[in-house]
């Protein structure tokens, strides 16, 4: 029963991030104490993300079509920060919350700084995320023209999910819902995947980090 608010499905993703961030960081900082760990620690001080990936590696390929049928390639946004998340329009809990919080973050940034970031959502529901459903979802959350919502066939999307390490599977008890990884990745202007945000992120965290990501 869905009675704990919109954050129920975040638990897996959040626990994952905290476990990874805590466990690996402790190993890196306390156990090894190497230059890489020190650099990572110093870099993390600049961000309010739940986790910073170090060394940052080039973001995986992301080339799909948006709900208007236009081709979108993440590489075309070099020079801007890019936020990448994974959603579906019939999602009852974390997807609308993530989308609304991204909208608030863009509002907090203001028009000039928001112009230095591109928000990309990749569908985790190839069947349900029709162009019409996506258009309605974006309008409902005030993100029309502010978020690239990418859709495709299961094969096309599964390729992206795998590349980005995102899980997606239909809920066994409630097949109208999809259990999926609920996180947001921050990609630098030079195309490196650097930061990770839990689905329960605060808009101020994104607003803080975007200018940094846009400079790297």
């Amino acid at each position, binding site marked *: 029963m869905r009675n704990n608010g919109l954050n129920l499905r975040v638990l897996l993703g959040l626990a994952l991030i905290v476990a990874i961030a805590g466990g690996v960081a402790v190993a890196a900082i306390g156990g090894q104490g190497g230059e890489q760990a020190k650099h990572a620690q110093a870099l993390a*001080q600049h961000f309010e993300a739940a986790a910073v990936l170090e060394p940052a590696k080039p973001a995986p390929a992301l080339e799909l079509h948006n709900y208007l049928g236009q081709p979108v390639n993440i590489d075309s946004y070099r020079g801007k920060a890019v936020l990448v998340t994974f959603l579906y329009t019939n999602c009852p809990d974390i997807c609308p919350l993530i989308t609304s919080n991204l909208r608030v973050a863009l509002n907090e940034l203001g028009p000039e700084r928001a112009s230095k970031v591109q928000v990309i959502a990749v569908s985790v529901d190839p069947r349900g995320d029709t162009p019409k459903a996506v258009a309605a979802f974006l309008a409902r959350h005030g993100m029309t023209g502010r978020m690239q919502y990418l859709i495709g066939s299961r094969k096309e999307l599964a390729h992206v999910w795998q590349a980005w390490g995102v899980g997606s599977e239909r809920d066994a008890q409630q097949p109208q819902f999809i259990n999926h990884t609920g996180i947001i990745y921050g990609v630098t202007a030079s195309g490196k995947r650097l930061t990770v945000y839990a689905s329960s992120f605060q808009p101020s965290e994104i607003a803080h980090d975007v200018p940094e990501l846009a400079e790297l």
Partner: protein
Amino acid sequence: MPRRRVLAWTLGLGAVVVVAAVFGFASSHTATGRAAPALPHESLSGGPVTLTSLVAGTRGRAAAVVFWASWCPPCAQEAPELERFARSAAGRGRIVGVDWSDPELHEARAFIRRYRWTFPTLRDAEGAVGSSYHLRNLPTTFIIDAHSRIRATLVGPQSAASLTSALESVERS
């Protein structure tokens, strides 16, 4: 399974070092215990309400500020209970709703009509007030004491009984 293998399998990142920028970020950003930020100025229903007028209206007791949105299913689950609370002796004049980041005004108004809310609701159209409350989930209820401090944060759908209990708990402490 070795930790790094788990990491690689989970995120597909290979051998990377992940450093938490904010360990324990959930507690470091909690709103509980600090002065309640101002409420939104825009009224949706029930007339204008400010934090000062809400607190003054309770005459030394606690009040509930409930953040919700029309697109939020758990908020719909909670909605009848909020009205039940607002009509009860314990809740009368002690609750205000804040519609958060809900660009479609007609949807918000339809939501209020659907659940026949009689308590005042305000509109945080751009979400800035929610941010100032460190809102992380919907619905979320902030219990405000007579000194306008946030004394409790209740995440998820509440019932009339749970709201009454939360207010009483703050008043007793």
